[in-house]
């Protein structure tokens, strides 16, 4: 199995969070030891169990930059009750289609899906499995939007994973319009992780990073400056059998927050 860049990214971010939380705890413990008893009492009522289970989750720089909140709305088709459940995310994993765009993949991601047959929903009100409609909305868009294209797909007929070389175009600017916020949040592309290779079991990663208004191409120790227009050579292949094996796999968009909230 290949070393998956998306898995690695998840691992890295979670590991960073762990480390930062441990550091913060250690710092807090230090502070608790050195601080005077009077101060401790003053803080007491607010945080009765500083070291216990009810502590506030720490908001690290990883959360500030990467974390967004999705709302998973499920509507029971029998009693019409809408169950909304928030979940946090560090990246969005999108199903892809041949000759499509990220905009279209995002639209599909938040489109309404019917849960039925094998996949029914347990409604708390009806106390049973029911048919339901489900949709995902972005409640809080992250500062850095990481989009993972599901290029490695398990094909049941083949009994194995296959790499989808589909051409999925991604613009240098993007807006999320399916958010629950008032303004459409605007993003700018600043990095792309590219998987090079025709199959899921082998290959190579390269990356494109925008730095000081120039696009840089990183291939192991080889670093080159490339033209912005070269980014489009990593969209994928419009035909299944193509000599082009370099496909955009993980996209990094940064919020242009200030200008979008004007």
């Amino acid at each position: 199995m290949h070393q998956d860049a998306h898995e690695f990214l998840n691992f890295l971010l979670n590991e960073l969070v762990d480390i930062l939380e441990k550091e913060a705890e250690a710092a807090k413990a230090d502070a608790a030891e050195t601080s005077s008893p009077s101060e401790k009492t003053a803080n007491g009522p607010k945080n009765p169990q500083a070291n216990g289970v009810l502590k506030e989750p720490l908001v690290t720089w990883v959360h500030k930059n990467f974390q967004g909140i999705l709302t998973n709305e499920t509507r029971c088709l029998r009693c019409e009750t809408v169950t909304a459940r928030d979940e946090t995310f560090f990246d969005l994993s999108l199903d892809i289609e041949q000759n499509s765009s990220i905009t279209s993949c995002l639209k599909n991601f938040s489109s309404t899906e019917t849960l039925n047959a094998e996949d029914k929903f347990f409604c708390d009100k009806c106390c049973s499995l029911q048919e339901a409609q489900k949709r995902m909305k972005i409640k809080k868009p992250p500062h850095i939007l990481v989009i993972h294209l599901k290029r490695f797909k398990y094909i049941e007929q083949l009994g194995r994973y296959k790499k989808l070389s589909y051409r999925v175009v991604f613009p240098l600017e993007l807006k999320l319009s399916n958010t629950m916020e008032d303004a459409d949040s605007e993003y700018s592309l600043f990095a792309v992780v590219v998987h090079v290779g025709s199959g899921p079991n082998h290959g190579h990663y390269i990356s494109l990073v925008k730095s000081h208004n120039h696009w840089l191409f990183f291939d192991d120790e080889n670093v080159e400056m490339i033209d912005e227009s070269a980014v489009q050579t990593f969209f994928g292949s419009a035909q299944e059998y193509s000599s082009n094996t370099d496909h955009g796999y993980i996209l990094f968009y940064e919020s242009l927050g200030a200008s979008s909230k004007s």
Partner: protein
Amino acid sequence: MINTTNGMISTSSSSTANPQSPGLKTYFKTPEGRYKLHYEKTHLSGLLHSAHGKTVTQVTLAHLKDKPAPSTPTAPTSSFSASSGVRSAAARLLGAGNGSRALSFVGGNGGSKSLSGSSRIGSLGASSSSNSITNTNFDGKGTYLIFNAGDAIFISDLNSQDKDPIKSIHFSNSNPICHAFDQDAKDGHDLLIGLISGDVYSVSLRQQLQDVGKKLVGAQHYNKDSSVNSSRCTSIAWVPGGEGAFVVAHADGNLYVYEKNKDGAAESSFPVIKDQTQFSVAHARYSKSNPIARWHICQGSINSIAFSIDGTYLATVGRDGFLRVFDYSKEQLVCGGKSYYGALLCCAWRCSTFFYTVACCLLRLKSILFPQIPSLLFDIEYSKFLLNSIDAKYILTGGEDDLVQVWSMEDRKVVAWGEGHNSWVSGVAFDSYWSSPNSDGTGETVMYRFGSVGQDTQLLLWDLQKDEIVVPLRRCPPGGSPTYSAGSQSSHWDNVSPLGTLQPAPSMRDVPKISPLVAHRVHTEPLSGLIFTEESVLTVCREGHIKIWIRPGVVESQSSNSESMLSTSSKDKPLLSSKVGSSSYKQ
């Protein structure tokens, strides 16, 4: 015997409509009837060199008013002219029996894959014998398709069923990327070609068709060796009524104005652009040199340009996502606005062919009767006439936000967003031949038909009700109160912005949305353009495959004689085999 074997091969090659895409339908339905796949045109992919950079195919439609004179005198003894003579008979037959061709074409669409290889052999042969192509007959309409792919420009006869081009012109130093044709051009040079290197040529299309070689002949060369601008040409256009003036847009945000009768050898130089973000125009210091002016329009690439039919306005779209509309003669920005997000890739004006003809006649009359008067008054009156009488009021754009934008010149803003593409919109066009079925000329319910193609391989057709878009959107979001909390924004939306200003990107909720009437997957590759003709809709993909979809009315009117045509052609074996004989000769 050779004829027979090759005949089979060639027949199969022309009838195998889609060897690589059996899943595509050969028709699509609209309220007025079926559009059917009529012909396909392509190039000789085996011979393409893309060493100079990747190109995307664009198509230009060219009407040569008269038939080109045959370059080779007819000599009945040579097998070459004998076969071409049969070809001409076949072409005439086909021209008369469009319906029959469509039938046989569609019928053979699911053709066997094993034969697609042989079709390639046929194509190869055709290309290697470009010396015979100039003699190919067409049905007298003189309509050609000019398209680029790889390092070549290809010319196909629109009204023949031949899949292969009749002429290919190869460029040794760079790849051609954009082209334009002016049927009213004086002194012969009617075709413009822009290259990746930034070089520009003007040539006579007729002269190319008459020449036997594979090189451009009799060309005027501009921006030679990128002496004025070294960035790639992106879009090129004749100035309507501009007496040989044309403009070339480049990937660095500059646009140059040339005059073809000026000496190309003396090249102009322009001052350094002080502020890349500002629009500025610089004129050449010497009146004899080309280009005569440089317009710096934007930072980043200009992706497409389009003149309003009378040449009053020039629209540009680019990498920065802005549509800009200029008063061409005044060299002033009139209005413009930003896409929802991302670059804009294409633009087109609403134009009516009837008024286009009127406009062209008037312009010609003016230049003939009053050559000494470059009267501005005339032009102003004339522009008013055009503006009031025709619908030069709408501009379509498409881009990386997957939206088709309808821009109103009256309101100086976006009046509708077409949602329906699943990828970037790469081509837009109004269907000026289409008339609303319930239009009675009173203008009560004016409808426009337009089309768009995208990188999602789809052709979308749209109907636009004028009433729908003139009234600003005042609807509430479903199940909620109107949320125009950002009051300044919505009041801004209602007002016509001052002349010469660019509008920021509208918010999703502010723009009325329209849905397509038809969405049809027409190719297997991402599309790059579309053209409406009187009889058909042409679609082209990035890789240089062109499909011609015949309009419903056209097929119906010819179906009566199609049956007789069909029987004739099937009975007439010698015709078929010798028709193919000509392609066997090519090898």
